[in-house]
């Protein structure tokens, strides 16, 4: 089925517009393009389709949410209390060239002074040909059933959607998304209802059996309690898996931001540590330089005076050899003996001979005791100098080596600091730092959630075991209770039925998954521009998708935006095929998140797809750049340029028809 025409009356920006979607005569492509700036009503075309078919506007922008559904121009021109109609009609054409018209009408009463008109009711009808070719008008459930045969409500999100979906599909909680898609496409809601019904019946019968035997009642109560707990754990598991997927996706996004960018936090930390280390090393070096200067000063005075020191030592030795040091007789004492002619030691008077001897002695003694004492005192210092000077070169060499080592360390630190500064220059360090912080935060969340997941899985296993045990006890008790034989038979029957339903559900899901995997792979490699880069697309039993690189590794996380969008598009088209609904696909802002180069290649992809399927694409002016327009304009059947009127109350449409 395809959309042939959309008629919009008084719906939001559309006062009275008709959009025709004819196929291209020349190459048979069914591609239709809308181009309009934000606020011109592009997304409201998506909303109009949803409103017409399902009675809801799932893609309303914040601005649109503030405005009434009734066109503002119409509202302005209405009288107080007047009823106005909003109409969205979708004309569709089946494969057999039969037309089905979906019509939704909403009546609103306008009150002056109140910006929101009051809804007076809504009417949905479908006009379709009957077996004889006569047109019949269908309402309510009959009308709804036609919608379900065009694009079923449960899978509408795969047909009419925002382009962001293509970008995010395999980023955020992809396993959950795929499982959800497979479930919806499998169409097993009926089986779900049957399973619920059977489960309820089993519980009712077990309750009845419980009335016959308190032990049965007690065990059943316990079982129901544990089943409720298990249900709760399963719900928590589902939630936590989504939370884990979100955390992983956020980490991945942040890592993508940080790819190729230096690890600012680590570098900043290293820079901080190195700066401190540099200061320490500089202090140590300066201390050593000071020590060396003091050493030079201390040694300097000795070395410069050293010839005198050597001479003093030699003189001292000579005087010692000559017996002048220490002086044999006190020169002063001798002088007083000569003057008094009395010996101070024995008290006898000196005769002439003795006097002469004393005089001779006096003349031979050159040093006074004080002078001799000075020399003796000095000798100690000279010996110290002599010893000290031996270490001069060694000490200077050692301290110079220390200084050189510190200098080398400093040079190395400075070199690394320069490297870090160079690495960090040109980056918004603060923003990058924030990204690192955020990543760390998400990593913490992820670890916490993973830990909780482990606990929940173990609780689940434990509860399942308890329930199985309780079931066995219950089974035993029911066997013992003769009155419950009939009930037991009924229960066995129901359990068997339930098991068959569950198995069938799983088989269908599995088959659908396999079909989607095959079709996704087929579509992806058919549309892919770099065919040699990838090897395979896999959707595993746990619904995780894997894109296998030619080298054999999973490269889903490292694919480009264009490749990611292509994979999501292939997956979506595969869902269409497997669902059996070859209905149109409408994408709002399909290439907003990808680069010009990839826009060009995706332009080719959309053109290819439009041969077999109707595609309606809604672009902003900037998004519809030369790169994509040069690819799509030659293939598109028509292009609608949307512009707001000068009073911004309605949209003006310019139609560019091609071919």
């Amino acid at each position, binding site marked *: 089925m395809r959309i042939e025409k959309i008629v919009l009356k008084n719906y939001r920006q559309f006062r009275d517009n008709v959009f025709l979607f004819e196929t291209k005569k020349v190459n048979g492509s069914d591609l239709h393009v809308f181009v309009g700036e934000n606020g011109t009503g592009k997304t409201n075309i998506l909303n109009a389709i949803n409103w017409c078919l399902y009675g809801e506007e799932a893609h309303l922008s914040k601005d649109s949410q503030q405005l009434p559904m009734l066109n503002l121009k119409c509202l302005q021109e209405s009288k107080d209390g007047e009823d106005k109609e909003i109409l969205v009609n979708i004309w569709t054409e089946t494969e057999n060239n039969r037309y089905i018209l979906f019509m939704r009408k909403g009546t609103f009463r306008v009150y002056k002074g109140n910006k929101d008109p009051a809804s007076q009711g809504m009417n949905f009808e479908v006009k379709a040909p009957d077996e004889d070719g006569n047109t019949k008008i269908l309402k309510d459930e009959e009308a709804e059933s036609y919608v379900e045969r065009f694009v079923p409500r449960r899978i509408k999100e795969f047909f009419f959607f925002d382009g962001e979906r293509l970008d995010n599909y395999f980023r955020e909680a992809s396993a959950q998304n795929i499982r959800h898609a497979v479930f919806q496409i499998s169409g097993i809601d009926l089986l779900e209802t049957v399973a619920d019904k059977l489960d309820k019946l089993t519980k009712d019968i077990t309750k009845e059996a419980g009335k016959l035997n308190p032990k049965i009642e007690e065990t059943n109560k316990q079982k129901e309690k544990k089943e409720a707990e298990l249900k709760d754990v399963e719900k928590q598991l589902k939630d936590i898996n989504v939370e884990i997927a979100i955390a992983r996706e956020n980490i991945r996004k942040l890592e993508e931001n940080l790819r190729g960018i230096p690890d600012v936090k680590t570098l900043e930390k290293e820079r901080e540590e190195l700066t401190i280390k540099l200061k320490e090393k500089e202090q140590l070096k300066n201390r050593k330089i000071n020590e060396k*200067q003091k050493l030079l000063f201390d040694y300097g005075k000795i070395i410069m005076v050293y010839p005198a*020191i050597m001479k*003093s030592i030699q003189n001292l030795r000579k005087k010692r050899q000559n017996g002048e040091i220490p002086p044999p007789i006190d020169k002063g004492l001798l002088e007083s003996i000569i003057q008094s002619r009395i010996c101070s030691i024995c008290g006898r008077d000196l005769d002439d001979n003795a006097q002469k001897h004393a005089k001779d002695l006096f003349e031979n003694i050159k040093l006074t005791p004080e002078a001799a004492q000075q020399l003796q005192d000095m000798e100690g*210092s000279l010996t110290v100098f002599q010893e000290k000077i031996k270490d001069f070169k060694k000490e200077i060499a050692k301290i110079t080596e220390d200084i050189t080592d510190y200098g080398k360390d400093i040079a190395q630190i400075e070199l690394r600091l320069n490297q870090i500064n160079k690495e960090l220059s040109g980056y918004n360090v603060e923003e990058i730092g924030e990204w690192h912080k955020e990543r760390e935060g998400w990593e913490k969340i992820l670890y916490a959630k993973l830990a909780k997941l482990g606990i929940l899985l173990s609780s689940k296993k434990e509860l399942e075991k308890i329930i199985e045990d309780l079931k066995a006890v219950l089974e035993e008790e029911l066997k013992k209770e003769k009155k419950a034989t009939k009930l037991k038979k009924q229960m066995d029957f129901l359990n068997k039925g339930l098991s068959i339903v569950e198995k069938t559900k799983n088989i269908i899901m599995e088959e659908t998954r396999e079909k989607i995997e095959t079709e996704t792979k087929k579509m992806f490699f058919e549309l892919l521009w770099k065919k040699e880069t990838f090897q395979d697309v896999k959707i595993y039993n746990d619904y995780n998708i894997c894109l296998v690189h030619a080298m054999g590794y999973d490269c889903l996380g490292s694919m480009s935006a264009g490749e990611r969008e292509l994979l999501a598009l292939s997956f979506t088209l595969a869902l269409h095929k497997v669902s059996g609904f070859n209905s149109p696909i409408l994408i709002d802002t399909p290439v907003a998140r990808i680069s010009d180069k990839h826009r060009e290649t995706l332009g080719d992809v959309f053109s290819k797809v439009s041969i077999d399927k109707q595609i309606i694409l809604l672009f902003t002016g900037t998004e519809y750049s030369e790169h994509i327009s040069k690819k799509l304009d030659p293939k598109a059947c028509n292009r609608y340029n949307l512009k707001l009127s000068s009073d911004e109350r309605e949209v003006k449409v310019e139609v560019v028809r091609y071919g």
Partner: protein
Amino acid sequence: MAEFPDRIYIDKDDKELYEKIKEEEMFQDKDIDNKDLFIIAMAYGFKHEVKRKLDKKEGYVRTEYLNREDWGLINSVAVNDGLIDNLNDRETVLKLAEEYAHGGIKLLCDYIDSVQYGSFDRQFEKELLDLFDELQYHKETPEI
């Protein structure tokens, strides 16, 4: 016997030079006081064999601050100049040291001025190493 002198004198004009060398990096922050500067000036004068009589004397260091090692150096200079038998004549001994310091401080300042700021220590080190090697070469004393 002459009284023990209570201070060491420098030439009044040298005061400025002593202040100036205090600004040299090598002499900063190392607990080097006036007495040490006087000794180094004396040693430098001695090394270059320059001694000059003081014109205008000004007390610079109190002798009580001189330690055993300082006296060892001052006395060695005196012994070298033939005052070995007059070492107890402190006035004469110190006068000689003052004259060497008077000659030395001027040379030292000129030397400091002739090299780039902060590089005096390296020049001084080199000079000391050369001098040390020279002393070893002459081996005038067996103990080095």
